[in-house]
């Protein structure tokens, strides 16, 4: 039996958007203020969970057709690749590179290879938590 949660679903549409924005913000702010890939990832997950709560698993699957295990793998690969890039330059593993750039719109921004690493973390966190929730949720 499907209950009719119009109220919830309407609120969710707005709220999910807010949460996602917040997640992205916290992810990018991580290097300078509290936050980072990890919390960002978890927040993203919670947005998706909220969707799952309001709608149902299949609908969410249709909206977000990711294979979360692959996402985890890609995240790990990204993190690993960022770290391993230093091998090419024969400097110790994990040596990060960064510089300050003057980008249009954003003003002076530091582009940091650690950010890529953090993106890996982000993907892994989303991938794994969603994997867990989805597998349990789908289990009979």
């Amino acid at each position, binding site marked *: 039996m499907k209950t009719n949660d119009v109220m919830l679903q309407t609120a969710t549409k707005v709220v999910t958007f807010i949460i996602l924005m917040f997640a992205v913000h*916290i992810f990018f702010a*991580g*290097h*300078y*203020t*509290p*936050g*980072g*890939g*990890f*919390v960002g990832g*978890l*927040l993203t*997950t*919670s947005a998706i*969970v909220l969707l799952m709560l309001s709608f149902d698993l299949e609908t969410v699957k249709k909206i977000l057709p990711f294979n*979360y*295990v692959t996402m*985890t*793998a890609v*995240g*790990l690969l990204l*993190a*690993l690749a960022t*770290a391993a890039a230093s091998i090419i330059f024969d400097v110790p*593993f*994990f040596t*990060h590179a*960064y510089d*300050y750039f003057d980008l249009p719109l954003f003003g002076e921004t*530091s582009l*940091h290879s*650690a950010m890529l*690493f*953090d993106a*890996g*973390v982000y993907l*892994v*966190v989303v*991938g*794994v*938590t969603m*994997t*867990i*929730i989805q*597998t*349990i*949720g789908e*289990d009979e």
Partner: protein
Amino acid sequence: MSFVFLIFLPLLAALFIPLLFKKVGKIHTGWFVLAVPVILFIYYASLLPTTIDGGNLVSEFQWIPSLDIAFVAYIDGLSLLFTLLITGIGALVVLYSIFYLDKHREQLHNFYVYLLMFMTAMLGIVQSDHLITLYLFWELTSISSFLLIGYWYTRDRSRFGALKSMMITVFGGLMMLGGFVLLSIMGNTYSIRELITLAPEMATHDFFIWALVLVLLGAFTKSAQFPFYIWLPDAMEAPTPVSAYLHSATMVKAGLYLVARLTPVFAISGTWMWLVAGVGLFTMFWGSFFALKQKDLKGILAFSTVSQLGLIMSLLGASAAGYHIDNIAETTFMYAGFAAIFHLINHAVFKGSLFMIAGIIDHETGTRDIRKLGGLMSLMPISFTVAMIGAFSMAGLPPFGGFLSKEMFLTAMLSLTDFDLFSMDVWGILFPVVAWLGSVFTFIYSFYFVFHTFAGKHKPKQLPKPAHEAPIGMLISPVFLAILVIVIFFIPNRVGDWLVKPAVMAIQPFLYNSPSEVDVHVSAWHGFNTELFMTLGIFAVGGLMFWTLHKWQKSYDRFPDAISLNALYDNLMFLSDDGANRFSMLYMTGFIRSYLVYMFSFVIFILLGTLYLTEAFAVDFTNLAPVGFYEIVILVALVGSTLTILVSKSRLTSIIALGAVGYSVALFFVIFRAPDLALTQLVIETISVALFLLAFYHLPQISRKEERMPFRLGNAVVAVGVGITMTLIALSSHSQKAMPSISEFYKETVYTEAGGGNIVNVILVDYRGFDTLFEIAVLGIAGIGIIAMIKLRLSKKEGQHENK
């Protein structure tokens, strides 16, 4: 000379045996094997001239030079004597086995592989100058003996005997290894020759007595001395050629060899003398006494072997007395060493022949039970003659080799009464008395063996097979040995010069500088002296007792089996599995709770103990962060929620309270200025609670009956203990900060060198990014683990090995 490699010749040959067995079907595999000992015998015999002059030969091959381990073949009189015994008797035994073991019914390739392996091992033992490789070969003999005894592996008795012999001899070997290591530590060398030169200095070392005892354990177990002899009778389950070879002529003599070889090292100690001579003599008496209880031909021979080994052992012990004597001429101790070696040769010869006869009887009549046998004299005349020669030699009758060595044995024992060191003057009188008693029983069982088998009434109905004389091939070896028995009687001094004296020199180097100095002349007649009267007494009393044997033999059965040494072994083995099982079941309960209680108790005990013993507890009241009001409030919340978990009845309450604890912790993070932690903790706590609910509430079939956790004092004590331990260590650690933290570096460089502002985040992705990389790997693994757990459901049947 690289004759060290010759040791491995039999092993090398063994590699081809399975091939030969399979490919060359027509010829008995034994014929190929026979070549090995024969070649070796001829080669080693050619070395005799060197040792007769007291010379020696050394050949070395490095194995693990870093550990100073090498194969060193050292050939002097003693090792050459043994080498010749091994190869000579080995050749005869192989010849005998060709006729004894049927080509078609037996797994000959296994048999000969083991036998050749054994030959290598034995050669290795007697030739090794290096303690470690000596040990290597020592264990190899145990193993090959194990395999040979278990040759008929479907028989229970075979398996039992094999295991028993291995357990006991390997135990001795391990102890001996300990002794060897101690010796090497004291002398800083593994070489026996060098140890001998260092002996006087080592004697004062703390380890000396330990080394002595441990080495003797090895020798006693291998040579079946009391109380370790029990494996030998059970080893008779091996095919008879094996018994003749391993369990009478060679392997059991390895212990004797070891004692002889190390006598120069240990002779300085009175313990050595007492132990070797005493145990040896007691074994001699014990073995001969119980030989009469046996009903199995090979059993009699086994006990006889035990007894004879004890005899030789006691002689070796007596020979050690020579170390303490200044003037050789005054003493008769020199006889002891000579007698030991001489009897060793004699024993190998006559016992080998006796075993072969026992095998023949078994082979031709189908039984070895002496009660079923009798009257075979006329049916098997050659066998009878050989058996009689062997047995009479064993009993010490002239004109057989045994008579000579038995006489010398008595001489040596008598001489011990004159020895005035190590309280010998008080207790020494026991030696000749026990020796005499043992000899009497030896006399009786020798007769028992021969006459109860060959004389008396023939009982064809009790025999599984009609008895007849053995084929000629099987008789070659025993006849040859019997002839040797007689030959030795007539040329004892030639044997003495060639074989015995060079060997004696190795045992008693402190007495002699060259074999020619060993001033012993063997003669069958040496006037009317105590020894002669003793011998006559043996014949008289022994004869009388044999005559009345049927009257008193039954009293043996009154000995209760329950308190015998065999029973002890059986009980030990029983204890080792059933006892261990029960003991183990006592604590391996399967309850995780018990395990945790053990573990936590240990943790509490050891940590608090250490804290107490090292006086590490300290509380430093300076350098503390101020206590804020709000901290206390959160603390109360934390403690309150924890208590809720402890007392709550409902699962849901517990879960929520756990969440509350998590949130309190997050608030602590807020207060203690850790925003990143607080963020993470909050999210994670929420997700965890959600997971808890998913896992624990979404299961209709579980009854929702909930109950308060029953209070258990034991658990509470352990729990409080852990809490106290952690608190105390935390206080002490915090109060004894000794070094500034490395984190100052991060604070200084985070903006300038790492290009970041949030130090924690920069540590995570940069300074200690490696941690993070694998932390997310952990997450990833958890992910796949969970999927696999949910999706993959195997029942036991389909789980494994589905492609079979």
